[in-house]
């Protein structure tokens, strides 16, 4: 039977076609998995580099913010814009395709909200959301858009000491006379290779980040 076909026109065996289809199927199955693994490895490396830069920056920013404001007698920490300006250079180098902003009102001409303290009176208006640090990375995205991290400075001052009521031990109120604490937080979404739909970011191509450093600071009496 085989000898009846002239050379060059013999049909290919059925099983070879089947084998080719199997190879395609295997490839279709393995390729996305391989790609996923590859992207995961690359992305985790990128994430580590970016996170590492954020930790270094936030540590430096906490020291900057704790070392008072414009003068040795300054009573408040530098605002978020001042701190951001001090660290944005080193941070932007490592945060590929991510924008670094200060957690301040982006409206033109608006001043940065002062760091909050226990003595702050009730705040009204749109700028009030910038008085406290954003609680989640989503809060940053809502204001500044995707792939943006915000630098926030939050100062908490201890209450003024007063006369303790009878029967109450000094110091009164508790913790009065403590030095202020300053928290610098970098939060938002950093650019990543994560495809959309994995649920890691609010949209595709980003990963949430939230790094903070808290420290005590010293204020000299004027």
């Amino acid at each position: 039977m085989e000898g009846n076909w002239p050379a060059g026109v013999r049909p290919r065996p059925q099983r070879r076609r089947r084998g080719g289809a199997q190879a395609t199927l295997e490839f279709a199955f393995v390729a996305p998995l391989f790609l996923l693994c590859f992207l995961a490895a690359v992305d985790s490396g990128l994430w580590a580099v970016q996170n590492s830069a954020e930790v270094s920056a936030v540590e430096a920013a906490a020291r900057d913010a704790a070392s008072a404001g414009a003068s040795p007698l300054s009573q408040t920490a530098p605002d978020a814009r001042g701190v951001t300006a001090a660290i944005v250079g080193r941070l932007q180098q490592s945060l590929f395709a991510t924008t670094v902003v200060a957690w301040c009102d982006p409206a033109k001409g608006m001043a940065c909200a002062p760091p909050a303290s226990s003595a702050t009176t009730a705040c009204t208006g749109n700028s009030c959301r910038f008085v406290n640090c954003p609680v989640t990375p989503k809060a940053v995205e809502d204001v500044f858009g995707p792939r943006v991290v915000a630098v926030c400075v939050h100062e908490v001052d201890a209450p003024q000491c007063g006369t303790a009521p009878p029967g109450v031990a000094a110091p009164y109120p508790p913790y009065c006379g403590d030095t202020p604490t300053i928290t610098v937080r970098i939060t938002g979404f950093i650019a990543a290779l994560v495809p959309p739909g994995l649920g890691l970011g609010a949209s595709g191509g980003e990963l949430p980040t939230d790094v903070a450093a808290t420290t005590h600071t010293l204020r000299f009496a004027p």
Partner: protein
Amino acid sequence: MNRRRSRNGMDAQAVLETALVIPILLLLVCNFIALMVQVTVQQQMDAAVALAAESRFQAPNQAFDYAGARCCPDPRCCGVSSNGASLATGGIPTGCRYAAETFYGTMQSYEKLLRWKTGPLCVTGGDSAGSAALGGAIPYAQSPANANVTCDVGSIGPDGVNHRGFLDHAFNPPRGLYAVTCDATARIDFSQTPLAWGVLWTPTIHAHAEALPPPFRQ
């Protein structure tokens, strides 16, 4: 007949190869991600102990906490109120509480991942030439024993007793200088994460920082 058997054998081999390679691939990726997480946590912990050691100097040498003082979570920061798990800091140097507040405030990010090795919050003494743990430092009498960070802090007690800090001979040899040290140790527990099936190790990380008093205090 033989060809079909051979073909079937090749199919089975391909399936076997895939079944072998995919888990190994995933295992490698999981461990790579775990390694990146470890590096990041280590860096965060280094930053936390460094800031903690430095913040001790924001409190006076003679300041001791009043009875009933607590910290960590710090009732004044972080939006977390003090609770039963927080540390009682009454009777220990205020600088120790400052260090702890700084440490706990900075190490908030990886709480669910870390299993801390707890120890005394505040210790005194110790010598870099000593071979014992923490250079032979001993806890303050009223120091809480379940802190995630241990700081060696010198102070002058209400009774006038001078509690030495950590004597480090690397500075100003051979006499050495008294420094503030902070140490923290934790295991990274991946069992609560999606990496659990592929990461079978639980690395222990340790961070140590020293801070010297600023010039105006020396």
